[in-house]
């Protein structure tokens, strides 16, 4: 069986499979399905300085091979996440987790990062500068290289843990965004966040999602994610955690071939709560069939062409 262990800043992972933020709650919900210690790490639900209820319902719509969501960063706030949610997770998961940080203003990001980066269970931060579902809620940081660099620099200055920046695909030049956050000191990049989409009720003409627009994710966005990871992983020297529509071990391997050093699994956790363990198993089988001994052999395999 191939070696799946990968080391990334702040994360020593037994395998490169990570549930993506917002599709895994704070982890413990999945412990009733399987032993979550099989996971390389996990990205926690987006956390803000203050508690947020988020957007009105409906927050979910469906698309071909994907779904739209507009949750709006619902979370109990950073203090409650540390004192309650992470304590519920502590007995269930022994490796380090990735805290996902959201916000509307730089000061929010900074203070949230300062507090949660001090938590012993947190191995790294994921700076979400690309949430499409919060008005004045980060998206502007995710589409402007200067602002992306600015918030990254500010968070890096206070974080006790490595900082990964989550990039939005809704930009003209994803490489410029990646270089900006690398230059600002990011330890890694996670990508891609959701594509902004909409659906309408044809009877009333009303947008199905109360927030009108939502973030589109699932297999439908996989080819876009592969392309952007391919471009960015060749343009920066920090590791990229690839995500966007990964639904199988084959998808995960294709994403790493594109240049990802690890993968995050999003929507598929919602369709199949057993998605992550299945994907880890499938990766093992495929690597064995391919006669590959170490997962590192396939990372960026496409760059030679």
């Amino acid at each position: 069986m191939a070696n799946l262990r990968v080391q990334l800043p702040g994360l020593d992972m037994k395998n490169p499979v990570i549930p993506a933020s917002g599709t895994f709650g704070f982890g413990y919900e999945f412990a009733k399905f399987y032993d979550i210690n099989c996971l390389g790490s996990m990205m926690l639900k987006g956390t803000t300085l203050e508690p947020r209820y988020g957007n009105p319902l409906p927050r979910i719509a469906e698309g071909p091979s994907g779904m739209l969501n507009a949750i709006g960063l619902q979370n109990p706030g950073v203090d409650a996440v540390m004192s309650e949610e992470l304590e519920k997770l502590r007995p269930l998961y022994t490796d380090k987790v990735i805290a996902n940080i959201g916000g509307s203003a730089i000061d929010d990001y900074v203070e949230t990062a300062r507090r949660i980066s001090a938590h012993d269970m947190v191995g790294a931060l994921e700076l979400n500068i690309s949430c499409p579902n919060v008005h004045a809620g980060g998206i502007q940081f995710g589409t402007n290289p200067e602002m992306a660099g600015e918030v990254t620099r500010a968070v890096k200055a206070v974080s006790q843990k490595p900082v990964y920046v989550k990039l939005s695909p809704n930009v003209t030049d994803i490489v410029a965004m990646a270089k900006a956050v690398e230059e600002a000191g990011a330890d890694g990049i996670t990508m891609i966040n959701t594509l902004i989409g909409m659906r309408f009720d044809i009877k009333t003409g009303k947008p199905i999602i109360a927030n009108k627009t939502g973030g589109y994710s699932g297999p439908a966005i996989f080819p876009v994610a592969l392309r952007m990871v391919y471009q960015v992983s060749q343009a920066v020297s920090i590791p990229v955690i690839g995500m966007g529509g990964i639904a199988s071990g084959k998808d995960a391997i294709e994403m790493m071939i594109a240049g990802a050093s690890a993968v995050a699994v999003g929507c598929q956790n919602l369709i199949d709560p057993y998605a992550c363990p299945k994907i880890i198993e499938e990766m093992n089988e495929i690597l064995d069939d391919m006669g590959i001994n170490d997962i590192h052999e396939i990372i960026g395999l496409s760059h030679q062409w």
Partner: protein
Amino acid sequence: MKNYQGMMTIVSKRELVKDVFEMVLEGKAARFIQAPGQFINIKINDSLQPYLRRPMSICDYDDNHITMIFKVVGEGTKILSQKNIGDQLDCLTGLGNGFQDFQAKKAIVIGGGLGVPPMYKLAKTLKEQGVEVQAVLGFNSKDDVFYQEEFMDICPTFLATMDGSAGVQGTVLDAIQAHQLVFDKYYACGPEKMLDACVMAYPENGYLSFEARMGCGFGACMGCSCKVKTKPYKRICVEGPVLMSSEVIIGG
């Protein structure tokens, strides 16, 4: 076998009224159901279409069977209605809190339209617990009525139809008043309008089962959170679908 998940086989299927189907599923996953009012979440196809699972209320169940009743309203339910006996479905079962408080002398179960099915197993359970049960079932018109006989076999059952073509003309609340029904606890499932009306008419001693568009059905995506008086929010799929009348925020 995996927790909460399993393949279930369609062992019976019948159209009760136009576009409303009763389906009985057989499989071990049924044993994860612990209370009436819990729901199952079904992967309609093993393809990507439709993409999301479809949450379905449970009409009746035992350790190896689940009876569900659904209406064809879109692509997913249409495909489901075209499945045949013997076909298998990937189901997540035992989801949600369900109805757990059976402490009552005289209870009333209120079902509106597709909210009727979960009331069936609930009525049977209440009766087993020695509670005196009455049922009020609301439909748009006579042609939409289903499961009336099934309820009558369990308890006194009263009908309401919006057009008056069967039972009392009007809502389930009109029927309760018309028949001057007395109760010390009520349980309701139906359209949000109906549930809101129940809460306004009877703010106390009620349990109401709500619907919401769900991403996962097991608490991961926060797609179905609604505001309640008792907490900042509850997830319909985990802390719900059943809420206490006293905690419901109308339009929450």
